[in-house]
């Protein structure tokens, strides 16, 4: 902020950076400027004209979003330029613009889903005239098809082009455009094809009118009837901040909350539209399998049966935690299993090998916001677009604004930015480690290089060797130093980091996921307690007695011999730790379904039945114990980033050795079906079908 300029806004002289727009300067001075097309995170279009202000001396009002302070000429006497935001001219200009906007805007607010949270409605009240002078026919525009998520009522469109700019700039797919011109101008996708972006739902938030609204939420509720609850998303390990809007015990929609460190103000489509899955396939009663069929039971019966199964030899008991398990329930389950002497614990249902080294080993140490400081990025065996859309968005943002160079080793895919595809196999990684040309040269010349390793890489048989190799690359290209930690693992499971942080891992001599399942096949493991471990095939459990605790009747519940109904992520207060190691607190928006209970409370009750009563009677007490045992959980909202990077030597990770030449697989086959809630959602199924169509078309 070296170059400051003085400007006089509404009689008050302020000093702002020269590259501020007039709108920013006015806001700095406390003046409110109405706008439609301008958006902080999009390029400037300057086409709605709502932000007009008066520059005293200029012949016409000026669009404040598109005029920079440095372009203001001082007055003739040398005093700073005078800007008026509340003069008669400005009032008249705003009224005029508003009148033009309303000429072709239908008066259908009573049946419009945007009603109550509509920029046009609000600003017409604040800045418009009281009555219409327009006698002629209004124009009507054909509605366009944009896929299963975005509903269009194009007559309401005021051509602000925010959606066009978002899809092109942020989502990076260039699918929406403004066709024709003048009165015939209309927003459309090419030949009305479905949007293929995994971020497309954000255009609904961006649309200042009711032209683009949410299809699944259509005509469901008015905004003032909804009860908002701030919470944390669990669809991936990003931990996007969300607002869960509910009414009468039902979640009706999910919106993003601004968090500059994580999701800025976007969320992925899975995060936004998964809510219909919260009402389907729910486990609302305890079930016990009798004669091969699950039959409803009472809590007492169910807990008694569970306790009796857990009382046997601890060697024959195992516990697995799934991807949506909250921190508190994992802690309760771990404490219970510790009390029972069970060592066969694992929170890595995918069979990953992470979690034995220092904390930096499994975190995204650069942090999501930290990506913006990077200038070279090596992606190994990951598809951030599918595994963490918001991390991908951040990479794209940095790629556009900075000069981030990106290299990819793994399956080639469209990541919405240019990548240097180095290879697909682990041997290519080996070659890169030894190379000094090509992308290695880019890494070498970079100031803040980083490596992003997909979580799926660590499920390989040679994961220790690959980890060592990645560590060696990090060391060689100086990715880790006191103020920068460029060694990153991109987790995909919302519960994973918390599980690893609390050591929800095999105890001494205990078995990990793969060993547990193998032992179950043999019959050595007799009882498996599955805390929402839904990604394990039914046959893998062998003949073990499976106690399943979770919220949805998915793969896990299908195999279960005993089902304990728990709460979904919107139905409980819980801590979540994202891939950066950032602890965040989610809150209960609606009560659990039917007889379902909070997950930690189920385990607390079960512990009593087992005769190993857990030492906490409330969530607060549980948290107090959690914080005492593992202090990292107490640092709410904090991501460690480069903390301790000076003592972290990535080259010591894993085991040196030969890697297999296999290609890196991807963690996610279908973005819309990654967890039980998403699989229960009809909307996600529709989205997935669109994706399949696009794929088959591309194949033709």
């Amino acid at each position: 902020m070296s170059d400051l300029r003085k400007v006089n806004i509404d009689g008050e002289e302020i000093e702002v950076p020269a590259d501020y727009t007039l709108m920013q300067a006015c806001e700095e001075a406390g003046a409110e400027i109405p706008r439609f097309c301008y958006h902080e995170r999009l390029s400037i279009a300057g086409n709605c004209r709502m932000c007009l202000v008066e520059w005293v001396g200029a012949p016409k009002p000026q669009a404040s979003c598109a005029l920079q302070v440095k372009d203001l000429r001082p007055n003739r006497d040398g005093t700073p330029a005078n800007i008026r935001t509340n003069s008669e001219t400005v009032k008249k200009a705003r009224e005029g613009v508003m009148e033009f906007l309303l000429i072709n805007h239908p008066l259908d607010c009573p049946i419009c889903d945007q009603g109550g949270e509509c920029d046009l409605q609000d600003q017409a009240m604040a800045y418009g005239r009281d009555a219409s002078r327009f006698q002629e026919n209004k124009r009507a525009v054909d509605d366009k098809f944009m896929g299963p998520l975005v509903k269009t009522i194009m007559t309401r469109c005021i051509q602000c082009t925010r959606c066009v700019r978002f899809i092109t700039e942020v989502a990076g797919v260039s699918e929406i455009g403004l066709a024709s011109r003048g009165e015939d101008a209309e927003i459309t996708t090419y030949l009305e094809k479905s949007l293929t972006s995994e971020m497309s739902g954000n255009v609904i938030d961006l649309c200042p009118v009711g032209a683009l609204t949410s299809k699944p939420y259509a005509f469901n509720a008015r905004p003032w009837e909804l009860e908002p609850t701030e919470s944390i998303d669990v669809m991936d390990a990003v931990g996007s901040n969300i607002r869960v809007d509910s009414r009468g015990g039902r979640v009706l929609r999910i919106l993003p909350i601004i968090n500059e460190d994580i999701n800025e103000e976007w969320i992925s489509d899975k995060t936004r539209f998964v809510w219909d899955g919260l009402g389907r396939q729910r486990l609302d009663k305890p079930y016990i399998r009798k004669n091969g069929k699950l039959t409803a039971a009472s809590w007492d019966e169910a807990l008694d049966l569970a306790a009796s199964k857990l009382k046997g030899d601890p060697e024959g008991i195992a516990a697995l935690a799934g991807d949506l398990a909250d921190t508190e329930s994992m802690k309760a389950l771990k404490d219970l299993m510790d009390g029972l002497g069970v060592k066969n614990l694992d929170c890595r249902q995918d069979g990953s090998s992470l979690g034995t080294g220092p904390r930096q080993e499994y975190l995204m140490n650069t942090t999501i916001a930290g990506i913006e400081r990077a200038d070279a990025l090596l992606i190994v065996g990951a598809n951030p677009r599918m595994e963490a859309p918001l991390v991908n968005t951040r990479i794209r943002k940095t790629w556009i604004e900075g000069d981030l160079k990106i290299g990819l080793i793994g399956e080639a895919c469209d990541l919405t930015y240019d990548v240097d595809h180095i290879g697909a196999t682990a041997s290519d990684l080996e070659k890169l480690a030894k190379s000094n040309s090509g992308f290695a040269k880019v890494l070498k010349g970079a100031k803040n290089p980083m490596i992003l390793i997909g979580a799926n890489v660590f499920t390989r048989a040679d994961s220790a060797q690959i980890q060592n190799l990645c560590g060696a690359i990090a060391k060689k290209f100086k990715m880790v130093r006191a103020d920068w930690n460029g060694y990153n693992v991109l987790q995909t499971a919302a519960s994973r980091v918390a599980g690893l942080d609390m050591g929800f891992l095999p105890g001494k001599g205990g078995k990990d996921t793969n060993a547990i399942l193998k032992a179950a096949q043999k019959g050595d493991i007799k009882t498996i307690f599955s805390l929402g471990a839904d990604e394990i095939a039914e046959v893998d459990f062998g003949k073990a007695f499976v106690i399943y605790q979770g919220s949805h009747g998915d793969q896990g519940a299908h195999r279960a011999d005993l089902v304990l109904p728990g709460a979904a992520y919107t139905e409980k207060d819980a801590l979540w730790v994202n891939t950066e190691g950032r602890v965040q607190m989610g809150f209960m928006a609606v009560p659990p379904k039917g007889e379902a209970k909070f997950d930690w409370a189920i385990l607390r009750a079960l512990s009593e039945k087992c005769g190993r009563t857990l030492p906490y009677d409330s969530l607060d007490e549980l948290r107090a114990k959690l914080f005492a045992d593992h202090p990292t959980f107490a640092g709410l909202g904090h991501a460690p980033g480069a903390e301790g990077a000076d003592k972290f030597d990535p080259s010591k990770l894993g085991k040196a050795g030969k890697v297999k030449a296999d290609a890196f697989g991807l963690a996610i086959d279908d973005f819309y079906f990654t967890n039980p809630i998403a699989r229960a959602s009809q909307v996600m199924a529709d989205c997935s079908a669109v994706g399949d169509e696009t794929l088959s078309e591309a194949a033709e």
Partner: protein
Amino acid sequence: MSLRRLAKEQPANFEISKAALKEIDIWVQKYPEGRQKSALIPALWITQKDAGGWLPEAALRALGDLLDMPYIRVYEVATFYTMFNLEPVGTHHVQLCGTTPCWLRGAGDLKKVCEDKIGPKGSTSHDGQLSWIEVECLGACANAPMVQISNADSDHYYEDLTPESFGKLLDDLVAGKKPEQGPKNGRFTSEPEGGANTLISKGLYSKVTKKALPNAVKKARKKPTKKAAAKKPAAKKKAAPKKPTAKKTAAKKKVKS
């Protein structure tokens, strides 16, 4: 101007011809590497000529692929400019100027000719030879009323029309003749009817001594390069509107020298 949409009936497949691709490449070459999409408008124009006067949907995609740009961006440009026809037109596509000067000089009568010979506004004749639309000012008001007729060979202006001369013009075109472009009432460009009546005194220019202009040398140097650059691309594109201006400048030069 009414709402423009892609034609409902589209050819099953379309490929840009080699000659057209070659011509498009001349335009692409004008822009730096990675900026080839700047050549979109000439490329659309060349493709339209290539495809018989209109742009099939497949052509938009072909150009998107060729210029490495999203289809929606091509679609935006094609729908923005009304000179890109999104629906099939006749072999000879008549764009009749209906703006005030032409209208005052009898464009309404010309419209009637079109309606009689071709059909209602926006239609194509049964034999597919002629189609017509009304357009806004084409910039030849001095020669009102006028039409522009686009076909495979040219986009000629036909000016100073009467219902009779216009009817004959259309008949000639259908008959496969190639009528001369320009005014149809015998005058030369936009000179007064019956010939020029100013600056015509004999010996007006004989006393003028030739004097080298300060920039004469530069001009001489520039000329050949300019011509060479302009020759290739412009040659085919706008032969019609160019000619009169060329003549005008030639006339001006005469005056100067």
